[in-house]
């Protein structure tokens, strides 16, 4: 799976979780600017587990890797 495909999948999932149109969600926008709080963030992690079979909750969840869709997709790509 390419990074772009992962980004597309993430936009799809985050759009459902945040109740926002996919067009409003850009890959470089920080999650907190998308109105995502800790519960929303954990919902994204659960979505990642279901979609990519990756459990990330026990990892460090550093801002560098988890700040926005672009960095998260790159992180997932490295883990896959």
């Amino acid at each position, binding site marked *: 799976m390419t990074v772009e495909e992962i980004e597309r999948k993430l936009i799809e999932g985050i759009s459902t979780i945040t109740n926002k149109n996919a067009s409003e969600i850009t890959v470089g926008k920080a*999650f907190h600017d998308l109105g995502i709080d800790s519960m929303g963030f954990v919902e994204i992690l659960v979505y990642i587990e279901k979609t990519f079979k990756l459990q990330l909750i026990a990892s460090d969840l550093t801002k560098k890797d988890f700040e926005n869709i672009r960095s998260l997709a790159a992180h997932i790509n490295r883990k896959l």
Partner: protein
Amino acid sequence: MLVSKRKRYLSGSDWVINTLDRMMKSATCVGNISQIVLQLDSTLQQNEVRNALNRFVKKFPVISGRGARDIRLAPYWKIPRKNDGEISFHTAAPDNNTSPDGNFTFLEKSANAPFRDKRDYLSFQFLPNGGRNVIAMTFDHRLFDARGAEAFLSLFQQDIMDGSVDGDITFVSSAALTQWSRKFRAGQNVNRRIIALSKSTPEQLPIHREGSGAYRYRLISFTPGETEDVYKRAYHEAGYLMESTFFLAVIIQAMHDLFIRRYRTRSSYLIPVTVDLRPNADALQEIFFNYVSYFFYQIPVQEAGDQPKIIASLKQQMYDQVKAGFPKDLAEASQLTRIAPPSILGRLLHLPLEGKMATFAFSHLGKSSYHHGDFMGAKIENLFHMPRVPVPPGLGFFTNYFNGRLNIVLSHLDGLLKDEEVQMLEDGIRARCGVPKT
């Protein structure tokens, strides 16, 4: 779906809040209310504030509604055509304005004062406080949850700016008398979780029934610089966007220190944590009523002194509960409780966990739903909440972030904590946040 300006069905969460209101009245003589406080940097004219709030509140007939049941027994909020009543508006006496302590005493008093009558769900407090006004809105939780109350005041400010707000809201709601198998399945999931939690009776501070029934508060407010440091530490120790987990871990340890000073603790701490399930935070009709559900976190006493362990456990418990759909199941299953009158439901809520429903309550509001930097032209220096926590446990911690500042409010039933214990909790929280009071 019912689309109506005069009737809005109550959800399961609303019904539980109604029940808590009744339980609070019976235990403390005052209902399940809270207060939102705005500290301003300058003075406003008392009459201007009162008149503007009066005009605004009158736009909302829903504010003078009342609970009722329809022919199928589904509970709903009956909304009159007009809201004619004058708002309840109190001004602090001059002797309250001489010191921050005087202000806080006034705010504590208003947070504990019953409303004028049973159709009253709001009152406003005005503290001239020298050159720096304090405005507070005391509200009944049957009308708003904390986010809704912030959004309501935000709407007031919007209306001051452009006069655009129309309060005659069309509510879309459902009696929710279908899809019973889904509700029962959700109920089974909730029961399983409660049974798992019941294996260990949670630690709880003893409630003295002879107390005044009033709540006392401690505001732990961080400067913008301190707040930045606390968030950096939170993201470093718990992970990005996991500040609420960090705050809760810090509070658990401070509470653990208190418990081991008082008792030989053996079992575990149980903490219900509020979750906002609002589907669309910006919708006008979602300002009113309740959209909360809960996570339940359990930390064994023997782990409560180890911060990394607590953080890892809280994160995993949150993950497991989101994955299992627990907060949504709880909201769904609570629809089933609506058939029970609050007097009976109140008794049922006490059955599990030997009546010890929690060690303390916790809520993190995060980013404010008050979207302006000022109130009627006066800059807001800080905004925080003073809730009365349902009994038991009668003890709770509430964190919010406003204008670069983190606030932690400790709310406790009078007599539950000694003054030096409150100070010990503040010192423990500040130290673990990395910003001890200088």
